[in-house]
């Protein structure tokens, strides 16, 4: 695993089997399995990284490996940025055993159960339904020039169901999804289909939200996306290092109220779980914001060596792609307010429910995300439903605007994109109350 001029090298191979099922308006559009075998060889030359991404790497062939290392070294020689690596904390967590192993079920059985969820969404008034299932088993093998090795197998799976309702040219949708590392999770989920259908129908009668600055209550799903988008990305060590984060240079600074603690924990057995990170580092909980103060950044070995303030173990990668600093399971710790107290304190504002995703410009410190729908809060009571409502803002001023944190945290699953790579994540939070939230909506007075 070494040649003259190479300071460090590693290889990460990912053999994956992916299954998908797509049922659209009762028709099985596709259901099948695909295979991939990808590897990334990293070479740290005199200054920076040279990397080679290949399919079907034969690790038993010294000749092939030496040829790839030489190619990697040649690439590394064009780099100028001097890279150092922090010592890797070693250790692996056990992958939780699945309840019902999806790999033990036939594609026919999975299709049958998914079909039940799709059918359940077709309540009266629903004009279109679609359900999809994804399952991916990854066999990961990692080794580096120090002689360290690890390997593990993990299966992630889940479903989503979509319902569309139409009336007088207006079309609205409801969507539910659940993903997990704990085994086949489709059984008895027909109520999720019904819920998607009911949401779509209810949205036909919902008005457009009137945008502006107001008090906003974020439900646990949207508050989790808020933690991920507004704080999590800005705490990623690579962005901090290159000067693209508003949290750069703010370790120890109070950026939110004392009730606010934001955590990323890849060792938590949620959808973003990693038994070991993509550089062979032990994964641990990192408190990014602790009682309102910036406490640590998320790191790979490289960003930790450059910046300090945190631990390595947050490197994640798709097969054949370089490890990037990534979030895993990101959440706001529960506070002590009841939902009634939060609504009462809000008095007049908006409740934002669910998430259609979000995005952040961590350098500018600006974020945006869309709720699935919302409700007006009038005199402390939840009243009319509103649709197509979003939240945007500046990270630092918004964090200072957190007034209350609820006493019950929930986690939701999704996928996060960065640098052309998508990784499974979970986000979570209790209900939170924001003052002066910038709420988007096309409604007028």
């Amino acid at each position, binding site marked *: 695993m070494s040649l003259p001029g190479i300071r460090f090298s590693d290889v990460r191979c990912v053999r994956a089997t992916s299954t998908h099922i797509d049922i*659209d*308006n009762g*028709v099985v559009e*596709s259901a*099948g*399995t*695909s*295979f*991939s*075998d990808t590897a990334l060889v990293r070479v740290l030359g005199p200054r*920076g*990284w040279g*990397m*080679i*991404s*290949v*399919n*079907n790497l034969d690790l038993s062939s010294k000749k092939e490996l030496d040829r790839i290392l030489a190619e990697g070294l040649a*690439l590394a020689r*064009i*780099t*100028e*940025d001097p890279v150092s690596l922090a010592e890797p904390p070693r250790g692996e967590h056990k992958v939780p055993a699945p309840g019902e192993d999806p790999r033990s079920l036939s594609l026919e059985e999975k*299709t049958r159960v998914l079909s039940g969820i799709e059918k359940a969404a077709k309540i009266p008034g629903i004009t279109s339904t679609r359900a999809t299932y994804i399952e991916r088993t990854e066999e990961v093998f990692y080794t580096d020039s120090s002689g360290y090795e690890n390997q593990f197998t993990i299966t992630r799976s889940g479903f989503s169901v979509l319902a*569309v309702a139409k009336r007088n*040219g207006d*079309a*609205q*949708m409801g969507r539910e999804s659940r993903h997990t590392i704990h085994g086949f999770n489709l059984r008895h989920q027909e109520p999720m289909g019904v819920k998607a259908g009911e949401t779509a129908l209810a949205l036909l009668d919902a008005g457009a939200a009137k*945008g*502006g600055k107001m008090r906003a209550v974020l439900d646990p799903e949207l508050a989790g996306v808020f933690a991920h988008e507004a704080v999590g990305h800005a705490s990623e060590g690579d962005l901090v290092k*290159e*000067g*693209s984060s*508003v949290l750069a240079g703010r370790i120890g600074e109070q950026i939110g109220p004392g009730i606010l603690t934001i955590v990323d924990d890849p060792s938590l057995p949620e959808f973003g779980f990693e038994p070991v990170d993509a550089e062979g580092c032990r994964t641990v909980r990192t408190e990014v914001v602790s009682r309102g103060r910036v406490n640590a950044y998320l790191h790979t070995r490289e960003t930790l060596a450059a910046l300090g303030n945190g631990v390595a173990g947050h490197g994640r990668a798709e097969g*054949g792609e*370089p490890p990037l600093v990534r979030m895993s399971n990101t959440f706001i710790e529960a506070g002590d307010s009841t939902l009634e107290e939060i609504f009462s304190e809000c008095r007049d504002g908006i409740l934002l429910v669910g998430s259609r*995703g*979000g995005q*952040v*410009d961590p*350098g*500018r*410190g*600006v*974020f*945006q*995300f*869309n709720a699935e729908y919302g409700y007006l809060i009038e005199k402390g009571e939840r009243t009319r439903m509103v*649709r*197509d409502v*979003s939240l*945007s803002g*500046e990270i630092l001023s918004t964090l200072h605007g957190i007034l209350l944190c609820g006493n019950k945290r929930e986690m939701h699953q999704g996928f996060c994109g960065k640098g052309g790579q998508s990784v499974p994540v979970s986000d979570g939070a209790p209900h939170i109350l924001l003052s002066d939230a*910038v*709420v*988007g*909506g*096309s409604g*007028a007075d």
Partner: protein
Amino acid sequence: MRWWVAVELIEKILAAGGRSAQEVEVYLVEGTGVSAELKREAVAMATGSREWGLSIRTIDKGQIGTSATSSPAKWEECLNAALSSMSLATPQEWHGLPEPADLRRPAPSYDERVVVEPSAAQEFLSLMLEGARKHPESRITSGSGSLTRSEVTIANSHGVHYTAPRTEVSCSLEAICGQSTGSEFAHSPFLEIDPLWVGERAAFFAGHSAKGLPMETGQFDILLSPVALAQLFGNILVPALSGRTVHAGRSRLAPLLGQKCMDGRIDLCDDPFARGMGATAWDAEGVPAARFDFVKGGVLSSFAYDLKTAYRYRAKPTGSAVRGGFSGGPAIGVHNLVLDGPREKIGYDRALSIHDVVGAHTANPVSGDFSVECQNPIWVEGGGFQEPVRKAMLSGNLFDALRGIGGIGAGSRIVGNSILPCVRFKKMQVIG
């Protein structure tokens, strides 16, 4: 893989698959690439890649199965998975994979000048840095340059066997000035990108927007750049033009075929022979690709169809099957979505120009409603940029906005699988 080895593999798969299915299709991609990345102003990483991917479809009595693999040695496992997948699919009306066609006109998807060498990627980075130096108040945070060459082959049991070379070059740069960011990029199948311009624009946007002022909430005329427009089109309009979405009852455009659905100045087509990222002479199922109109003079004239959707709904296939890599089966998409119409000077009367948007993927693709954060919002007047705005959120409905635009600007640029101009929209809601 040598070409004759690939031919032999394809023949083996077609023969073996033909024993269990009426039709077999093989899609093969092989390519190499190189990229170099900047962190601040230094080259921090260089990556080489070699990709090989195989996708197989089998079809029997209207049932379609798919599978894919990145391992040549696993082709039999892949074929068996496609056959298993086929047995589960709901049977549908099917009239066959395409027969061989005379495809003499090559698509502009290949430039022999593209050489996959680290020095070429390095050159992109140097030029971008040089361009950025015109705005020394801005600092570079990251950037990248890349070049790829690949060969795509599609073959089927009716004798179709097309191979096309492809090249792609791209570069991008991100800059910051205080807490103001700017980014720009360029990509093309041809060695025709301008890294100097990319660097200059990224640094300009970061520096200019640093002086941004607050704005009031209200309704204003908006100039959406080709980048911002492509984001909204990709997330809302392109799905609504898919025949599958239309017939599944999830497109707001479904009842409007033959009717006016956009401003009369708008022509919108898919042109696979335009010099864009999706240039191709045949689609992802081997159907000859040809230019066709989605919207002509504001009137909706066609939706996009692959074979499966066209056969099912007795529509005319439009050669609109695309693949997002070898691992996914063909799906309806666009090759090069081109918006055209009478060009006007659209930046003389005061309007808010938006370079890019954050969060377009959170739009509602069914209703067309969106609410996005603006990147580098700048007031324009008298044909040039005026004062920048610190923060603005744009809300609206894309389908409604396209019904009465304020004009189409001069020039167009490649943004992903689109070739778009800047478009002026009337009175949209902006939250300051």
